[in-house]
């Protein structure tokens, strides 16, 4: 049975092994190689999206707000999206976790345990979600894997792992070139960086631009997949460290700020749990306003009514040089990220 898989540009790959287990012509299969918590979150997001599209209900807004521009999910589907899913795991516990998390969608999901090669062979597009250690131990180097990867898009969510290191892992060191990997009989790696809020589908995910650039349909597929777990932005690779600081480390900075607000509220007599909840709700509401297009400086001015109480609090923040502290904090994190990325020693040592 010949099957045209080439809805993803450049994927003119004949079926090498002959057995096409696809149900219907035109099914796209996404394989999650190493399906941990993040892989499950993404699959869950995709499956929920697909089922709400098919029953023509509006996609649930994650925040309950009515402003269309605040919707993180892209509602325009690429020309083709995955409809069959394979989750590759190694341990029983992992298989069980996938089964439980995706229980309402199991008809579209196959769980393969210790059958990575099969999972990749049957895939049209792969989400690489294993740990960096697994990569080192050769998950992509088992016999037959290179051939199975040929002509396929591999979306990597591995933390701190560049495309160069991924390619080196599979194909050995190569001179940098601008040629399309597909033309060289290789797979195409795309690096994406979700953040810790992926698990509740409120991630700020950064997609690193590829060289040469992805085709429009490849790019829209990657965007669509990652939009199932939050917002997406495309940045050049040299901005990855800054993005790591802002989006990767950011949640920790906001957690610190929230703790501090709750401390102040507790000092003023509010119970800790309530103070934390109200602070978090207010933090979320402010974020929603900025996402809806409100400029933060104007927002600040609007809240700061003449003779009101906000101005006094803001004065304390300015006197305490919060602007400079926070700006330096994010810059420090970014510099540290790039030094770590270069393999420098002693990045976290004494100043």
């Amino acid at each position, binding site marked *: 049975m010949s099957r045209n898989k080439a809805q993803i540009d450049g994927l003119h790959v004949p079926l090498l092994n002959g057995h096409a287990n696809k149900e219907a012509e035109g099914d796209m299969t996404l394989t999650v190689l190493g399906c941990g918590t993040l892989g499950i979150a993404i699959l869950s997001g995709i499956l929920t999206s697909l089922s709400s599209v098919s029953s023509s209900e509006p996609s649930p807004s994650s925040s309950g707000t*009515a402003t269309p521009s605040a919707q993180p999910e892209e509602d325009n589907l690429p020309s083709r999206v995955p409809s069959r899913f394979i989750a590759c795991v190694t341990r029983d516990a992992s298989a069980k976790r996938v089964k439980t998390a995706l229980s309402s969608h199991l008809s579209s999901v196959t769980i393969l345990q210790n059958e990575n090669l099969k999972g990749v062979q049957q895939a049209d597009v792969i989400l690489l979600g294993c740990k960096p250690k697994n990569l080192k131990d050769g998950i992509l180097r088992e016999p037959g894997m290179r051939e199975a990867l040929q002509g396929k898009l591999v979306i990597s969510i591995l933390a701190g792992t560049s495309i160069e290191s991924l390619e080196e892992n599979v194909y050995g060191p190569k001179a940098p070139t601008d040629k399309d990997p597909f033309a060289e009989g290789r797979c195409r790696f795309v690096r994406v960086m979700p953040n810790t809020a992926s698990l509740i589908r409120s991630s700020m995910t950064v997609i690193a631009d590829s060289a040469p650039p992805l085709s429009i349909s490849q790019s829209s597929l990657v965007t669509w997949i990652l939009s199932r777990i939050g*917002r997406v932005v495309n940045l050049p690779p040299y901005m990855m460290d800054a993005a790591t600081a*802002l989006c990767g480390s*950011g*949640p920790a900075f906001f957690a610190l700020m929230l703790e501090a607000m709750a*401390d102040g509220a507790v000092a003023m007599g509010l119970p800790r749990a309530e103070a934390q909840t109200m602070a978090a709700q207010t933090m979320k509401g402010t974020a929603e306003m900025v996402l809806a297009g409100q400029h933060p400086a104007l927002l600040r001015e609007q809240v700061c009514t003449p003779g009101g109480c906000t101005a006094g609090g803001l004065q304390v923040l300015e006197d305490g040089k919060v602007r400079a502290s926070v700006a330096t904090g994010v810059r420090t994190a970014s510099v540290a990220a790039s030094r770590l990325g270069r393999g420098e020693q002693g990045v976290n040592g004494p100043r």
Partner: protein
Amino acid sequence: MAYVNGGAGNSPNTLTILGCGTLGSAILFGLLACSAEERSKKVEKGGQEADLPNGFEHEEIQKPSRILACVRTEQSAERLRRQLPASEHALPVKVIRGDNVRAVQAADTVLLGCQPQDLDSCLGAPGMERALRGKLLISILAGVTIPQIEQVLARGETRATAKTNGHVATSGDGRTTSIIRAMPNTASFVRASTTVITACSIATPANLRLVDWLFTCIGTVTHITAAQFDACTALCGSTPAFFALFIESLLDGAVALGLKRSEAQVMAAQTMKGAATLMLAGEQPDALKEKVATPGGSTIQGLLELERKALRGVVADALIRCTAAASTLGSKQA
């Protein structure tokens, strides 16, 4: 213009917004959006009662079936009329200028949204106190307490009739005005407000359910005591400005690193939203910090920088200063 008096039988249940300024308008539009959503859910389910969010029992809440929005200037009236949805299925809204007392006479529930300095002239107008008897009055006036409102009403009654003893608004016919104080915040405009509510002692469960429903249309609702109000004014009312400042600060750093400001703004705001959502889902702030700050990584470097600059102490102090300022707001009122 004659308004049908609200209340019994088939007459409309009327909500009058007395002083429909920016916040009043935000609540109005949130309410309209909420009603529209409920209506479309009902249509989808074939006319049966849809499941309401937050477990509200439909029958128990006397929701308004029409709204009277009172403004002072013709300009405001024009602007408001322009912004109202055109749909004939929407909740009917009538914009009224210069007819406050009659609009309150026609009301079942009154939302007080005038400027705090206009409290006396608004609630002290001839006939106003009488018009409010037996009704629910919801105040969103910043820095104005329930006792202060009761005093203004009592003064109004005194002017109109013989003296009363107590400071609770009462009359010969035994009816009182239920007063509930609510403080939404600026995120009302995107229906993500953190609203805190305190009620007078005579507020009924039905009053409270209505107020909860009303403010759930524009965000979350928390009931607090009068003693906690100033702290919550700071924590919910003012902190949006603090969070906005944090975002500005992050953007300064991001732009210095080479990110475009417009992109960095979305990234920072979405990251903040994600962090908040995680913590609302039960993740403790210190646990979140620990999860993100991996051993030997870059996050801990950034965090240490913030600790060196005593960010926590400064932010806590800002909140404390804000609360103190909030407590003096009320004393400026009559």
